[in-house]
């Protein structure tokens, strides 16, 4: 347990340092995607998705990892839609998301600390109101759901489609990006 926590801490610190080095701890850089001036966040996110997708697929195909051991978060359609909207509004207002607010706070930025304060208020409120939110939570619960199951396509075909969509998006964004 201690070793696992130690590894998690190391990965977390490395992740934070990388974000800071890439400039993703600064609100001005992050909100650039909403004004069409800087799509760095989108590119970073999709690059991470592609790396994970291709990496996990091929490592599993080569027998080095067992995909059934991966934790797949459950789908709660309506609650996740509402949560996504709340998250998006908060992201636009604050210019930071939870992860980047930690990085900003660790770098000594006050706006990062303020967003982290809001983060804890949100988590605490959600926990306190959990019983009241239970009907919403259970309203559209689909259990664990993945794209191959949803579209009834082979796993590898879904991998190819996601890669194609991501690369196409990269090309389109490069065309529409207007650096400030």
């Amino acid at each position, binding site marked *: 347990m201690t070793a696992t926590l130690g590894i998690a801490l190391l990965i977390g610190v490395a992740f934070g340092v990388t974000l800071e080095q890439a400039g993703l701890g600064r609100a001005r850089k992050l909100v650039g995607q909403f004004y069409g001036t800087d799509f760095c966040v989108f590119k970073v996110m999709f690059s991470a998705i592609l790396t994970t997708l291709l990496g996990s697929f091929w490592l599993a195909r080569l027998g080095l990892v067992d995909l059934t051991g991966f934790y797949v978060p459950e789908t709660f359609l309506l609650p996740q839609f509402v949560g996504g909207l709340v998250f998006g509004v908060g992201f636009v207002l604050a210019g930071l998301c939870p992860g980047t607010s930690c990085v900003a706070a660790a770098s000594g930025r006050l706006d990062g600390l303020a967003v982290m304060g809001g983060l804890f208020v949100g988590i605490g409120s959600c926990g306190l109101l959990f019983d009241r939110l239970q009907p919403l939570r*259970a309203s559209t619960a689909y259990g664990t759901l993945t794209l191959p199951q949803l579209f009834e396509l082979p796993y590898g075909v879904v991998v190819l489609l996601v890669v194609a969509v991501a690369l196409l998006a990269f090309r389109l964004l490069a065309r529409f990006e207007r650096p400030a």
Partner: protein
Amino acid sequence: MNAPRALGWAAIVLGAAAAFAGSPYRDNPPPRAQGERADDATAPLPAVSATQLAEWIRGRQPGLRIIDLRSTDAFEAYRIPRARRQDPDSPDRIAVSDRDLLVLVSADGRIPAQTVIHLRNIGAREIHVLRNGLRGWLEEVINPVLAAGASAESRQRFEARAELSRYFGGQPRIGAPADPSAAESAPATDDVDASIAHLRRRGCG
């Protein structure tokens, strides 16, 4: 060729190859999709004893979820610690994770088939039913009775159960030898109601 372009080409090659590489799941089948009926969806559920459940609760068993399928009134009258009520007539409102350890609770240990089918179809892997339902919980954990004149070995086993019982506010006692025929013929719901009424009088409701 710059680095982003090279990485893009690498992604295209690996993605295209993935489409023809077959399933990444080797020996294990992929998780079941929503709506895809499991072959063993109607197979009987494994039962868990009330004592085992009590030990799971006390030991904070990871992933443990206790779903109480009794009526709202019955649930409000008495509930097993950490249990959440769920209407058995609308099992589609139950959301689970494939890592949950589910224990279903009814009044008498009988679980509606559609609830079991739903849980298995949405990917629940570990589903147990509480043996004898709430009646079993009350008899085994809350009101365990050691028959008078029991052997030393039985007394030793009972001590462990008594400690567990006291943890949950129960009252273990030594009483007259149990009469199995009387237990069989007694109406189960009356037993449960009487036990719950007794608990509420003690202020544990």
